[in-house]
């Protein structure tokens, strides 16, 4: 206990170790937040969802904080809805069961670009007679533009850009430009815009609800991909996946390697010889290609890949390093004493030999985590990522497949890459410091 306290105090002497620990702690917090905020099943349905889940988002939209660096501000996406009251709604009953529903929505538009597209989704209640809606558009300079009039079904979608009559009325092929342009300066007009929808209902319980969806050029904290998915989901959920994969793989590999090295050096003879030969064979086995084969032929599941990774990494070069140290420890007096009073082989290996090595195990364990995190990402980049879970590597794969670097969607690759880098650096920095603390030969250097 005391030594643990001492080594902890020792760690605090290294600024890189403190930074590494802060990063790791932060990642753990993000992972916990992700798992609580978006439960596992929820995350999977979100990530595999199509247009029905993500219709509110534009495609290929960089994150909203891009505006911070741009001199020409680009419009940020948003939605408004009568259900949550963001679109105000007033119902005036008329004669013979008819009624008027007035919907009004005002929003600020202070950007130097035009939106991608706008939609109105109507959700209407009626028995036989459709309600009739007319839509008006009020610009900040007081112009009043008639958008359209139509009878609306139960589920009605109105796309501003697809309305050919509106194109003619605006005398502009691009409806978005027509609606937001300042006719004099030919630049986007800034200020308060108002959308007015007047619905006439012809039945007693008939009602109109509408959702206004504004697809800007930018979206949210992390942006969106080719399927309109919000990248935040995958970035958040990638954290627990990466941490779990890295930790389990590295823990499994180093502990098993150590046990095998201990067994080999304790028994010696043919056991040791066999383990040495297996290590040499493992050296010529193309580890990554075998993982690829298993990923392609057998299973993409992250847990299968994890198991194979551990299995193939056990007999790595570090088994030789451990073996050399075990051979030294084997000759020490306390082992001799244990043998003299008749301790069993397994008792000596697990209670006397291995605990001696734990200080050496820890730095190696921490330093090898980034390699496994990147391994998972590498497989995902090759298209062999887990079929259901959203991971960082899968975002990079999607981005690469859609030519993100060539088309300039840099955020798409940079966000997961930055997270990978931070994770890798965090563990590597801590591992480095631990190595210097636990490895006395390095202490003075």
């Amino acid at each position, binding site marked *: 206990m005391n030594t643990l306290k001492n080594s902890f105090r020792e760690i605090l002497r290294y600024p890189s170790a403190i930074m590494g620990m802060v990063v790791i702690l932060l990642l753990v917090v993000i992972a916990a937040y992700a798992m609580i905020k978006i439960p596992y099943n929820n995350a999977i349905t979100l990530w595999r969802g199509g247009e029905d889940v993500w219709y509110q988002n534009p495609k290929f939209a960089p994150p909203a904080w891009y505006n911070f660096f741009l001199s020409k501000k680009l419009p940020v996406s948003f939605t408004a809805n009568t259900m949550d009251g963001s679109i105000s709604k007033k119902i005036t009953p008329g004669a013979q069961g008819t009624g008027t529903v007035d919907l009004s929505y005002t929003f600020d538009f202070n950007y130097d670009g035009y939106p991608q597209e706008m939609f109105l989704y109507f959700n209407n209640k009626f028995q036989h007679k459709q309600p009739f809606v007319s839509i008006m558009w009020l610009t900040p300079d007081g112009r009043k533009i008639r958008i359209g009039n139509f009878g609306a079904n139960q589920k009605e979608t109105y796309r501003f850009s697809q309305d050919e009559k509106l194109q003619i009325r605006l005398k502009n092929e691009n409806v978005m430009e027509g609606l937001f342009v300042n006719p004099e300066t030919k630049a986007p007009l800034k200020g308060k815009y108002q959308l007015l929808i007047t619905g006439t209902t012809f039945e007693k319980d008939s009602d109109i609800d509408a959702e206004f969806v504004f697809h800007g050029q930018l979206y949210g904290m992390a942006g969106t991909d080719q399927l309109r998915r919000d990248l935040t989901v995958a970035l958040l959920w990638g954290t627990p996946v990466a941490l779990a994969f890295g930790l389990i793989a590295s823990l499994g590999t180093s502990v098993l390697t150590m046990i095998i090295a201990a067994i080999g050096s304790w028994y010696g003879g043919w056991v040791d010889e066999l383990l040495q030969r297996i290590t040499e064979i493992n050296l010529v*086995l193309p580890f990554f290609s*075998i993982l690829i084969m298993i990923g392609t032929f057998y299973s993409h599941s992250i847990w299968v890949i994890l198991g194979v990774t551990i299995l193939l990494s056990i007999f790595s070069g570090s088994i030789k390093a451990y073996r050399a140290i075990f051979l030294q420890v084997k000759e020490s007096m306390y082992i001799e004493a244990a043998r003299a009073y008749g301790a069993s082989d397994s008792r000596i290996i697990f209670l006397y030999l291995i605990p001696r090595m734990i200080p050496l195990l820890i730095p190696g364990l921490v330093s090898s985590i980034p390699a496994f995190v990147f391994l998972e990402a*590498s497989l995902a980049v090759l298209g062999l990522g887990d079929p259901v879970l959203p991971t960082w590597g899968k975002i990079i794969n999607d981005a690469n497949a859609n030519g993100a670097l060539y088309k300039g969607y840099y955020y798409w690759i940079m966000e997961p890459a930055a997270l990978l880098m931070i994770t890798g650096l965090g*563990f590597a920095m801590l591992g480095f410091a631990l190595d210097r603390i636990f490895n006395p030969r390095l202490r003075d250097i």
Partner: protein
Amino acid sequence: MAIDDKSSLESAKRKTSFGNSTFMRVARYTAVRLLTLFITVVIGVYLTIMIANMGGYVDQIMKNEIRDRFQTTIAISPGFQKLDPNVRKKLMEETIAQEEKRMGLDIPIAVRDARYLSNALTLNLGRAINMTSDSGSKEVRLILLGRLPATLLLAGTSELFLFVISVLLALSLSRRYGSFWDKIVITLSPTSAAPPWFYGIFLILIFGALLKVLPFGGLTDSPPPENPIDYGLSVLKHLILPSSAIIVSQIFLSIYNWRTFFLIYSSEDYVEMAKAKGLPAGDIERRYILRPTLPTIITQFALLVITLWQGFIITETVFLWPGLGRTLYQAIGLYDIPVIVGSTIIYAYLLAITVFLLDFVYALVDPRVKVGGGGRS
């Protein structure tokens, strides 16, 4: 004078006999290593085949594929439609059995694995399903060997630069540790946690997309220049980014490792002694630090090269470098089983050749092999 002559003659004689026996020892050592390595490769390739076959799993895929293919051909051919359904079914089963026999799927798996093994060892890797080599052949061997030079070019260049740069820088850093540059290297060494492809993305972004000075990827400009000199220059230009990605990803860690290693060795007593004698720093480095540590440096380098081989698969994919790794990536996309298995076997060979070459160099520089014993630490 006469005595002098005699003694020099004798020493010359001794030298030649010593040279001969050194040669013999190195040769014997090499032969033994070659034999053990061959056995290792055989077992390694056999394991690869077993994994590739996954206990008959791949056979099942192939059987299903054959069944599927014949069922559709028979279903759409008008000649068969007139036949009685039972006769047609019997006919179909017979054809499928025949095809399975042709593909060798009716032989027990152990026998087949052994046959695969001998085929694989002689690089008789079968025919690809969808892919073709640049010359249009469907032989997996030709496809893979055709792509090998590109991989070797990339690997050779980057590894050579990596090795030379990091050893030289490490030596000079070990001479003045604690200096500003030393601290920089220590601080940056955790960056080697990321693989080459990762830095490749950044390099493409900076030099390809933003600065537009270097190409995004590929081996040459398209169309490839006719003139051999232009062609070479074009390849060189395309080589810069992928090889720097590999070098950048490993350089700081290798400098750090070797610097630490040299530092440990330069505090040995005999180095202190040499310093006390007043030998020049260059001599101390070459004869007292570098010379005894050379075998370890080579072993370390071998391990690094082996790790890097694996990393090439994605690095090549990211840089559209037409090497083995990219072929493997394409084969995954096309589900071309023979190519995937074949390239895994080629990789096993490459790893074994790397191990052997470095072993051979090791034998040349390790005094213990030269003097006798032939032991390996």
